[in-house]
């Protein structure tokens, strides 16, 4: 039994989220929205943690990948929706299958972008990567903003009328899958390479680890889940625009990862939940929110760079993961 612990946990998580989502009608719309946002935040934070935490790179473009996923998924749903309904049928299962397809298309497009951006820049050191990913985020935004208003991307006004498919099952199910995939990758024998790259890239390279390949893998997987998160976001809000995926959205995710502890999945998940809920309660103090975030970043780096719940907290001494 112990061998399949993780798989069982994943199955339970999926079942629970499915069961809970059956009762989501009872929930107040406002709370449901916060719930869904929390699930999406978890996906974004855990996937960024694979890049920034476990592999020790620094990506500032998570919102860019999210944008790619959101747009791709929304376009599939809007443009191909009727045809897909024709193929899969119009029942609950059919809609689900069509939505899954849209999400996967979004994820794959984002992963492809991750590969295109990652291969050149990941051969270089971390600080360049931060700038390149930031630049990528900006390029995506500029391109989307300059598309024609009547094109499939909708120009600066964005896309509207996206079917609201995202439910608690989809948001938290995807989060569970994301956590499972990232944890399984990191804890496998092969996945030790990620941690080796983070701890000392030169030493890892001299031990025969293909550092570039590990970095690109982390980047592509991270981008894939960011794309999935974006797709869920699009189908939650029903409307997306390029401005919603700016640099600050990326910073939000980075703050979650740093606060939770880079490389600590439990910490990052908790930070994602806490920060999302806090964001809702701090709506009235919107202008102070980013000042607080910025101060948090600085103080955390000076006083507790390992995060509030570092990975070492959950493991015996002498082992890090």
């Amino acid at each position: 039994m112990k061998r399949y612990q993780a798989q069982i946990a994943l199955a339970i998580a999926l079942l629970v989220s499915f069961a809970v989502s059956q009762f989501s009608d009872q929930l107040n719309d406002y709370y449901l929205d916060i719930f869904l946002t929390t699930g999406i935040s978890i996906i974004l934070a855990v996937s960024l943690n694979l890049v920034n935490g476990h592999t020790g790179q620094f990506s500032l473009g998570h919102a860019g990948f999210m944008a790619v996923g959101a747009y791709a998924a929304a376009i599939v749903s809007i443009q191909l929706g009727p045809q897909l309904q024709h193929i899969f049928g119009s029942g609950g299962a059919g809609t689900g299958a069509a939505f899954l397809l849209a999400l996967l298309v979004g994820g794959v497009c984002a992963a492809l972008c991750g590969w295109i951006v990652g291969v050149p820049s990941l051969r270089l050191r971390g600080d360049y990567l931060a700038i390149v990913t930031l630049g990528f985020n900006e390029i995506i935004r500029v391109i989307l903003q300059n598309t024609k208003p009547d094109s499939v991307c909708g120009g600066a006004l964005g896309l509207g009328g996206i079917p609201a498919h995202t439910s608690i099952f989809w948001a938290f199910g995807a989060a569970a899958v994301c956590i499972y995939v990232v944890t399984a990758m990191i804890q496998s024998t092969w996945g030790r390479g990620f941690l080796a790259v983070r701890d000392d890239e030169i030493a890892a390279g001299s031990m025969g680890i293909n550092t570039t390949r590990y970095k690109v893998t982390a980047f592509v997987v991270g981008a894939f889940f960011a794309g999935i998160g974006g797709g869920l976001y699009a189908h939650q809000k029903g409307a997306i625009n390029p401005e919603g995926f700016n640099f600050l959205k990326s910073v939000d995710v980075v703050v979650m990862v740093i606060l939770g502890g880079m490389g600590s999945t439990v910490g990052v998940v908790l930070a994602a939940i806490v920060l999302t809920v806090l964001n809702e309660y701090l709506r009235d103090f919107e202008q102070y929110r980013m000042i607080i975030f910025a101060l948090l970043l600085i103080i955390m780096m000076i006083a507790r760079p390992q995060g509030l719940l570092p990975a070492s907290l959950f493991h015996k001494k002498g082992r890090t993961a």
Partner: protein
Amino acid sequence: MDQFAQQLLNGLFLGSIYALIALGYTMVYGVLRFINFAHGDVFMLGAFSGLYLKKWMEPVLAPLHWSLSLTVILVLSMLICAALGILIEFLAYRPLRNRPRLNVLITAIGVSLLIEYTGQLVFGATQQSFPPLIPANNIALTGGLAVTNTQMIVFVTVVVLLVALRHIVMRTRLGLAMRALSLNPTASALMGVNNSVVISFTFGLGSALAAAGGILYASLYPSVEPFMGIIPGLKAFIAAVLGGIGNIPGAALGGLIIGVTETLVGGYSSTFGLPTGYKDGVAFVILILILLFKPSGLLGKTEREKV
């Protein structure tokens, strides 16, 4: 052809400002080996201090000739921002001197956001118009080209500042210490260089140049807002990478190249049926290309990382 030459000229003026900001990135990278993300925000603070100095010192400045009052405002803003730069280094970066680079990078992003949002709180989120420090006047050149008075002054100021910087770096003891530090921090400390003082000085110098850049930029594009530093800052950073980060003439060259390319793309994109909005993406494309083909930059030396 005339239009091309005109665009080229406009690009040079914009590029000279990028060069000014890029120098700050490159110098800080030279001594501390990290990217000071907050540099673009110091640029913004420079523009704002110019705005407020002009407002508050109006009674003093009014009787003076415009060139004199421009000099006063420029020098005062440079001093204010130099002090701010030193303060930022002292409070945020010095405690992290021997920590992993990633931590310093994150702190720098934090400092940048802090300045932007505090700026938004203090100055207001709306755009403010920047008062004209230089009287508007067109100067006709031969061949049907025209430059404004402002562009000319901007260019002259940049050249003066660059010459002054070169003098400081190459001819003074502090400049010598800066070069020694960027070559090898441990060895320079052993030779009696007070590294902390030199780092503070470098931050001050870079921030002063950024402040000058801010005022000049705001004179060319007369509106200021708390987030105005992000994009010019990034472009200047790319200019520094293009010229070879850590290399001072390289940063100036990179700034000019970025400015010219961007203006040309902006001027001609409509000819090729592209929206002019793409000109903001040009710099990033250049960055990705340079990282792909010559990561050390045009004038930079390749540096091998050792264990």
